[in-house]
């Protein structure tokens, strides 16, 4: 599953959002993602993709920024 689909699945489950509403330009705040839920999202990514984001990672503002952050760490942890 690609990262955008993973975000969509998570937010559909937690917030009942329509997946198509979630685009790269969406701000996390506008979708109803607060700081606690951002932690949940990061946790989900780390679990599902086998990556590890450093504790001091600055959390992104948009879905696109989140995707790039995760993709960066996914590539960094590939053998």
């Amino acid at each position, binding site marked *: 599953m690609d990262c955008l689909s993973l975000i969509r699945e998570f937010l559909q489950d*937690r*917030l*009942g959002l329509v997946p198509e509403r979630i685009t790269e330009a969406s701000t996390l705040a506008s979708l*109803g993602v607060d700081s*606690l839920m951002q*932690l*949940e999202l*990061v*946790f989900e990514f780390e679990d599902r993709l086998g990556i590890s984001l450093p504790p001091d990672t600055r959390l992104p503002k948009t879905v696109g920024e989140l995707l790039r952050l995760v993709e960066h760490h996914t590539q960094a942890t590939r053998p």
Partner: protein
Amino acid sequence: MSERRVVISGLGLVSPFGGGLDDFFARMLAGESAIRYYQTDDIPRPLAIPAVVCDQFDADAELGRPQAGTMDRFAQLGAAAASRAWQDAGLTAADSGTRPDAGVSWGTALGGTLAYEKGYKELWQKGRERVSPLSVVLGMNNAAASHIAIRHQLAGPCISYTVACSSSTIAIGEAFRRIRCGDASLMLAGGSDAPLAYGVVRAWEALRVLAPGDAASAPRACRPFSSERAGLVLGEGGAALVLEERQHALDRGARIYAELAGYGCNCDHTHLVRPEAAGQARALELALAEAGLQPDEIDYINAHGTATREGDPTEVAALQQVFGPHAAQLAVSATKSMHGHLMGATGAIEALITTLAIAQAALPPTAGLEHVDSDCAGVRHLHQAQRGTPVRAALSSSFAFGGSNAVLAFRRHD
């Protein structure tokens, strides 16, 4: 300045029967038990006990999925009960909104124990190295109180009490004090607990105080004051009262169920689990004194009555000490025989029942009480509902492990 009086203007609960307030109280009057045979698929040994479960409660539907997802079940039950009480009091969204004169006082014995247990399973059963990032906010004991304050934007005191089985009686009593002393004009008070976690049930089993039962006998497993009593029945739930300064309630034209007139709170200071009649009697006297009530003005007592061998006779002995000759006429029932022991929420659901008993002049029975134990005789046990006789005043008692006693005194509001 005359003393500030406190009235009850709203009631709410998550009923184990699945219906609303009227349905719940009608079933209490009918002596209907919500106790069922509860079985799980836990490993290594599934649970199979009589218990009370609110299985028709849909937290997502009632609270909204985003909010429900950030709550342990005890907080979900609490938030729902509090919202129902808020609505029952005729309060609307317009009554919410950064009110420094309104607060929350909540009782829970176990807090987010299900969230913690889930975390332990992840770590020790599944061998994972970490738990959900929500574990702290799901598990913390003040989560229910905070969610309630946030939902209704109540900016006054937001306090949680964890005092075992007296938790929500104390929460209601302390809220009463907050209003009396002028700190608040309105308090959402009550309690919630979800004690059917695997480890919690096993812990209660180890104390040898859980009533046995199977699918057929479970509804009558909890038999307070009976010679056949064999222990308590765990249950989950939440109940809430809207407490309001009397003039505040009158000014907004609120319906008033009853007056909360007194509160007694003390400690046996003798033993962690062995109850003492002298300590309980003192708590009863404190509540009567604060309410300015004489013993013969009390028409009903909703007893703590857990159906343990030692607890029930001790409570009756305390009643006899305080009520003397009036004890024989004193109508007493233990509604745990029907709704189970909700741990930290039990005082709240029993306060709700006592309030309705006054408002409707109808007293619920102790279900399944066929043979009163000779150790528990001396008061007028209600085998059936009593209807139509005005109830001038009533008490609701909670006597917790740790020796923490709490009694609320209610009076009819005319």
